[in-house]
């Protein structure tokens, strides 16, 4: 490249050239994730991006495309594979969600999703710990991670905190009251999330049942579901469930979510009939989705998601 053309390169192109470290790290992390799951006997799968009927969830807006939608997550198709007898599967794929754009959000992003039959969400917590320790070691890093000036110790076990304990510790309300006042998400974002995963990662677990449309109810504690989210240095990285495997119950919950969408004048997606039917053959199972872009942000010590992808939507 001649010096003259180098001077004339636009800001975006020179920004791209400056992303070499992050994009290299990203490629490395994705390779390490594959090694981890393949060594544990997981099968890597691919499911269609273009689907007719996304899961009816109140606050996840799928992008219409052609006669269907771009998948907001590969969840329904991957669960159908589990129902058909694929007991350990993982997928790394792009997912799409309408109008999600911020320092930690892209409308097109990369998810790592995995399912294991005959396990529950507690087993996935252990597996998350093992995955992070493995990535850190393979990258030649130690047992500590420094993110935005905070030192996070990755040694197991990590903190396990229930949603109701977190509300008691960091807010003046309990989760049920917060939900009734429609302040649950606001308190979560402003008062709770920034304090999670400060010295070691935190599993925030046992969400109110109404906030877990696809999760099994807790085996012991009434009113909550077996769902957790993983936080490191205030950054939300993963969402997991012990999966709900009762087709009748799942259909009822989807109807509630659809009603919420209708009440907010949002698109009500077509009924996911084949998924509901398949659920009759679902073994007990746990599943998790982890944001790969945010995982790279963490290991690259970047506060903005823009830094870890080659192109943001604004740069196209």
């Amino acid at each position, binding site marked *: 490249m001649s010096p003259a053309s180098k001077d004339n390169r636009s800001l975006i192109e020179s920004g791209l050239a400056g992303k070499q470290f992050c994009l290299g790290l990203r490629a490395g992390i994705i390779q390490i994730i594959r090694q981890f799951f393949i060594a544990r006997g997981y099968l890597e799968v691919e499911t269609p991006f273009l689907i007719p009927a996304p899961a009816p*969830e*109140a*606050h*996840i807006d799928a992008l219409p495309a052609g006669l269907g939608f771009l998948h907001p997550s590969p969840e329904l198709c991957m669960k159908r594979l589990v129902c058909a007898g694929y007991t350990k599967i993982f997928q790394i794929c792009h997912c799409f969600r309408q*109008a*999600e*754009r*911020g*320092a*930690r*959000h892209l409308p097109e992003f990369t998810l790592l999703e995995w399912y294991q039959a005959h396990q529950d969400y507690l087993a996935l917590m252990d597996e998350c710990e093992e995955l992070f320790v493995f990535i850190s070691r393979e990258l030649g890093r130690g047992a500590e991670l420094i993110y935005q000036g905070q030192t996070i110790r990755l040694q197991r076990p990590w903190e396990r905190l229930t949603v109701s304990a977190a509300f008691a510790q960091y807010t003046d309300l309990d989760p049920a009251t917060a939900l009734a006042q429609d302040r*649950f*998400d*606001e308190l*979560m*974002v*402003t008062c709770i*999330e920034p304090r999670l995963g400060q010295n070691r990662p935190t599993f925030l677990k046992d969400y109110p049942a109404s*906030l*877990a*449309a696809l999760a099994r109810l807790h085996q012991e504690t009434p009113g909550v579901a077996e769902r957790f*989210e993983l936080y490191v240095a205030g950054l*939300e990285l993963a*969402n997991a469930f012990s999966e709900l495997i009762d087709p009748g119950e799942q259909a009822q919950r989807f109807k509630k979510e659809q009603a919420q969408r209708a009440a*907010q004048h949002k698109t009500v997606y077509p009924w996911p009939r084949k998924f509901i039917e398949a659920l009759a053959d679902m073994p007990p199972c746990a599943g998790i989705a982890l944001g790969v872009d945010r995982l790279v942000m963490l290991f690259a010590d970047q506060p903005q998601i823009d830094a870890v992808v080659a192109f943001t939507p604004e740069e196209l």
Partner: protein
Amino acid sequence: MYTAGDLRKGIKIQIDNDPYVIIDFQFVKPGKGQALYRCKMRNMISGAILDRTYRSGDTFSPADMQQRKMQFLYNQEKEYHFMDVNNYEQIMLTEEQVGDAKNYLIDNMEAEVLLYNDLAIGLTLPNFVELRIVKAEPWAKGDSVAGDSKPVTLETGYVVRVPPFVEEGTKIQVDTRTGEYVTRVKG
């Protein structure tokens, strides 16, 4: 009408009958929860700062303001005087209301004055203004101490960094949004 999705830095909205400008903006969304829009805003009349969190369904009225093209006349102490060239009406802005724009104001310069209920509350300059350098160190060839740029003083008193070859007496273009040198201009 704006919706929450339109909110971003610099947007001016009406809250409880006062105009506010958004000075900081964050999109956040917890796990499977609702999208939230966290805004820090400044009251354009009192200067008070307000933090608010909005949801996707929320709507806003744009702040009800007029803009009038006016000419800068002069400043006296902390008062900046402008005139509407069509009707010769004069208005005054405080140094606070003028803000960073004071770095670029020279006599007879045209600017958009923001009015709220006929009350002048702020100023928008053109994105680029042309100003003359009144003081600059001469550039000695091979002088590497200066590095890639040197500070120069403009006719408004504002100090800006320019490439070392730009000399005293030259007119330059400055970007009023960033406060940075853009290029040399003839004249």
